[in-house]
């Protein structure tokens, strides 16, 4: 088990227990963005449990969770997979220079009807 400190940090941030997972796959089966993801919700749970975190930190999948809470809602064991994805994403974007979205990128993205909510939400998920 490599990088034990990182794993402990992620488990603390996630505040959920990956050992409760019984690998039924319901989380990934229900995930609305499954097709876009390299690593799926159930894999985040098991890879954090196994300390296999480096591949997750490098994956685009970190930014493809929509925080829709379907995996949390439908998990029969209350594992809360979204919390693991969030914790790994935070471990990434909390590092210096790892912000996914910067204010400089915003003007080019604004349309007439872009809601403030989109910008606020995107900064919350992609930037520290």
């Amino acid at each position, binding site marked *: 088990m490599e990088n034990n400190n990182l794993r402990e940090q992620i488990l603390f941030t*996630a505040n959920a227990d990956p050992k409760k997972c019984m690998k039924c796959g319901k989380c990934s089966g229900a995930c609305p*963005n499954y097709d876009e993801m390299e690593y799926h919700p159930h894999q985040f749970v098991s890879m954090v449990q196994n300390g296999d975190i480096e591949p997750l930190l490098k994956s685009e999948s970190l*930014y493809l969770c929509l*925080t829709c809470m379907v995996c949390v*809602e439908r998990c029969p064991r209350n594992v809360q997979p979204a919390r693991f994805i969030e914790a790994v994403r935070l471990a990434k974007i909390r590092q210096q220079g790892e912000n996914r979205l910067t204010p400089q990128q915003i003007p080019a993205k604004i349309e007439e009807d872009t809601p403030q*909510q*989109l910008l606020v939400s995107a900064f919350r998920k992609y930037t520290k």
Partner: protein
Amino acid sequence: MEFLYYPGCTLKNKAKDLDLYARRTAEALGVTLTELPEWQCCGGVYPLGRDEIATKLSSVRNLIAARDAGRDLVTVCAACHNVVKQVNHDMATDDYIRTRVNNYLQPETPYEGETQVLHLLEVLRDKVGFDAIREKVVKPLTGRKIGAYYGCLLLRPSKVLAFDDPENPTIIEDFLRALGAEPVIYAQRNECCGAYAAIENENVPKKRAGAVLSNAKANGAEELVTACPLCMYNLKKQADGTGVKVTYFTELLAEALDIR
């Protein structure tokens, strides 16, 4: 009936119809929504990390203000509702979060989740009552086939939000029936629209909101109704050219009460 009202950032800007008709229809139904003074933005998405303290502070400031005023806090935006309600739940149940937030904010009386957070739809259902609304409808939406789009934020996680059955909700359909419309039930009504991924990956809302629209249409919906400005944005983009109209629930209510 008087409530403190938390509009949030988007209702003051790009979702003005959601705000304006919330106030006007509430007033017509005997509910006064008094805007919370100096409210702060909720941040748009609930900060899931347990050690995310700073990102929870703005919600707690709003909650403390409501507690100190002795009023329930009413939200209209689905995202604000989700964030403020989940943070409130943390303050009531999570000692780690509660201690750190109170240590930072130093309120005169520590905050422990005392405020009740209500979505306007809950006020309409539980405080006003859909039957009372039905009686006040002057221009019923007769014959209009409308699909309720719940999305994620009103329903999940249901253990915390306790808004409605997360897999088979009925509140918006009951609301539509009270207005005289014909609700259309379709499978995608509680699935995600693509949310904030719209900022960097258009493909995601295209697929997600596209699936919502085509499923609603296939089941006979001619209109969709939502409580979320981001759902509105994502759905509207995909609705272009399909003939499906997307409106806020407060607009439909105003129309039926003839105060639009």
